[in-house]
């Protein structure tokens, strides 16, 4: 491959990775925006999304590449079922582990979040064992440039890349519409601004928090399903790493800002793909964490977030 082909290829890889990070990052940013909690277990909800969708496909007896009407009926169905399940899981986590601590000292819910993360990871470890699990190659993979356009190129861009964008972009646009244009969205924004005032205005704050956790969990579930279809492999520990990258994305974009989460996700996707190629895959984690530290220290409001002055 020529150098510019490598760059284009890695950029496409970065785009698809980044889209998945962005979906996960949205859940971090929404929950942080509304109750100021770093939901440490969120990455593990993403991991559960992968394994739960895998279980749904197995339940339907689907193990080979989907064709024709299967593709347009079963796939959306499993998407919805997975998102509902992970949404409910995320709400349950909030009810059990975070809600009782709303008025406790600030770090208490973060500590329980870490505990929940360990529980989810290790339950999955016991459920599916320590070895990586194969995720069936359900989505048809077609080399677009060669097979559709007849271009003879070493670039490998497939229908799977299209799937990732085709699933994530509508989800993000839909979420943006929901939050900015609907009554429920307005309640969420008001609660994020000021919980007491929202309560005084007759907004059911607890129900709004439930809704936020549900949406965040559903998006993470969708991301898990997409990850499975794209990479065809799942590991019990993948939620920790993906979660930290997505959190970095949320912080980079500006925590609390939804366009920021999308932008941050894409940036982290590109950076990690380029780092894998041009530095070394074994340094990529360190690079992402270094970005996380630098942003938190020097620009905690991120790229698109607003600066919140400390109250004296």
């Amino acid at each position: 491959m020529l150098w510019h082909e490598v760059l284009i290829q890695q950029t496409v890889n970065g785009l698809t990775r980044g889209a998945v990070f962005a979906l996960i990052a949205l859940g971090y940013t929404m929950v942080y925006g509304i109750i100021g909690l770093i939901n440490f277990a969120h990455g593990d909800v993403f991991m559960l999304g992968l394994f739960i969708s895998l279980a749904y496909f197995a339940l339907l007896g689907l193990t080979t590449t989907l064709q024709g009407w299967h593709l347009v009926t079963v796939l959306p169905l499993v998407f919805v079922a997975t998102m509902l399940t992970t949404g409910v899981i995320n709400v349950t986590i909030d009810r059990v582990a975070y809600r009782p601590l709303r008025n406790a000292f600030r770090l208490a819910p973060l500590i329980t979040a870490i505990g929940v993360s360990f529980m989810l990871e290790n339950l999955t470890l016991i459920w599916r064992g320590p070895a990586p699990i194969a995720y069936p190659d359900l989505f048809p993979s077609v080399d677009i440039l060669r097979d559709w356009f007849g271009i003879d190129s070493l670039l490998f861009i497939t229908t799977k890349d299209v799937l990732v964008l085709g699933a994530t972009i509508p989800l993000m646009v839909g979420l943006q519409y929901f939050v900015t244009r609907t009554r429920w969205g307005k309640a969420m924004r008001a609660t994020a601004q000021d919980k007491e005032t929202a309560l005084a205005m007759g907004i059911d704050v607890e129900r709004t928090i439930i809704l936020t956790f549900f949406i965040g969990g559903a998006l993470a579930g969708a991301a898990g399903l997409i990850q499975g279809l794209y990479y065809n492999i799942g590991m019990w520990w993948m939620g920790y790493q993906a979660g930290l990258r997505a959190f970095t994305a949320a912080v980079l974009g500006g925590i609390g800002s939804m366009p920021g989460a999308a932008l941050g996700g894409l940036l982290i996707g590109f950076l990690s793909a380029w780092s894998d190629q041009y530095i070394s895959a074994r340094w990529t984690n360190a690079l992402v964490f270094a970005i996380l530290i630098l942003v938190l220290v020097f620009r905690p409001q991120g790229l698109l977030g607003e600066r919140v002055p400390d109250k004296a």
Partner: protein
Amino acid sequence: MTDRGGLRSLPAALLVTALLAYPFVDRALQAQTVHAVTDAMIYVLLALGLNIVVGYAGLLDLGYAAFFAIGAYTMGLLNSPVLGSPLYGHAWSFWVIIWIAALVSAGLGVVIGAPTLRVRGDYLAIITLAFGEIIPVAIRNLGDITIDIGGWRPVERLNLTGGENGVNPVGRPQLPGVNFDTDFIPWYFLILAIGAGSLWAMSRMRDSRLGRAWMAIREDETAADCTGVNPVKTKLLAFGLGASFAGFAGSFYAAKLQAITPGAFEFNVSIMLLCMVVLGGMGSLRGVILGGMLITLFDRILLAQMTSLIRSVGRSVGIPALISVDLTLWRWFFFGLGLVVIMLIRPEGLAGRRLRPPAADVDEGEEDLALVAAPPRPRAEAIPRWLRQPPASAAVVNSHPILEVRGLTRRFGGLLAVSEVDLVIPPRGIVGLIGPNGAGKTTFFNLVTGLLRPDRGEIRLGGESLIGLRPHAIVGRGVARTFQSIRLFQNMTVLDNVRVGGHCRLHASVAGAVLRPPAVVAEESRARERALEMLAFVGLDGRGEELAKNLAYGDQRRLEIARALASEPRLLLLDEPTAGMNPRETDTLTELIGLLREEIGLAVLLIEHHMEVVMATSDRITVLDYGTRIAEGPPAEIRRNPKVIEAYLGKGYEEELVSG
């Protein structure tokens, strides 16, 4: 706090005897548990170090295992033939390198701590986690470095750390007549000695000026800063000292295990240590030891025992599902569960003080407040004698006014919060600062005390500029304050609150706190006496050992003033001191302010909405409205000033009032 008493009590003596006799009993019984117990003690030592950061200073560190790694690798790399260290192979190698490891870990603690100082608690936790992840990655990758820039390789297969293979072997400690090679008992006594020494040092730090500063930062960083505690220095000391104990533990671990690999220092280890601290009780030395032992016991013994028990039950009853159970697989699940359950049902841990007050104390109605016995009237004789001496902060007595503010301006975005304000307080002066809500009074306070930086203007204390000084430094110069909404160190005792107030007048260093030379002992006993006198003066005598949060509202207000006075100020800033007080309490406070001026010559700047209080106590009054000074003068004049009346009541009333 709760762990005092030391070795004087009988149970403690029994415990020491048991610890000393244990390995010989073990040998006699051939139980062979010394090896495992020694390992457990390494983790208890680590948990104790983490407790300094999390329990005392309240900084959630999720990457503490990184310091453990640094300690182990410092020992491993310096005391091993693998990378050709010149320090390897001497009789003194281990004994010297263990101190180097502690220093290196402490240094790294400061390096990691430094960038986190500006960020909030949860961000700080994530940053420490990120550092904790980077360190093992770096250790792995630095074992095999190749830099390839388009075929040019300036560095090829360089090994700095042993990489994935780790370091093996590591030199053992050597002492004449002691067998560290094949016998576990000397290792046990070595870690026991390190642990006992660490515990001794930690308990002395906790009970010192430094320990109180850590807890003040944990309770309320801004209030601590405004009470004279330097948050930067205090937090860095917590990170550095906390890490140094991981350095000792890491060196011991490397030497005992004889081999170290990067996998032993992952996130899991940090979380297990956090679990020990949380289970035992953050901030309690006894609790953390208990938590550490319980968790190790559970992890090393109980899980395996339970597994074989369930299996034997399964076999005898004939349920195949039970026979294949392996609870050790559930190990990390149980750690996660433990964190959740402890936080939900007992966040203060097994040995901590209850963090939440009993429900009945929470909402105290207005009526209850009125029924609280009136505080005793302040008496001139009760003023502590040391306050009558010229305050330590006023080394140079000169003719300048105490406070001189000129053209002070601060904007927030488009809003001019304080604009071109002048204010002068002469020695022994009491000046009232009044104005409608939002007039900029508290912003003015925050500018004078250094919480905010002015955009323009000059602030001079006794002729010296205060611009650019951090709040704790301004306290050191002699300005103390209280807050509009009371900001005490809630989970510290009343006495400790006042002693934190005296922090900037004490001098004990870390070494002084641990070794307690006569000067430090004298300083501490003087600080205690002074704090007790101060409590007697504000009418809180005998309440010193109560937690600040359990005091009634009016008592909390007076405690905050006592804390401010303990810093021996030249100027006291009171932000609505009588807010929420009943009339009797208000009278007492008014008298107290007057008494302080009459008897010790303290200057006071007073924000107050009770007009009777302001008019009765102030020599002069400055009125702010929309950030600008609209009037200045003696109370009688201010009372009739039409601008002031307009600001308070709106246009149209002034004539009516002035004529009437």
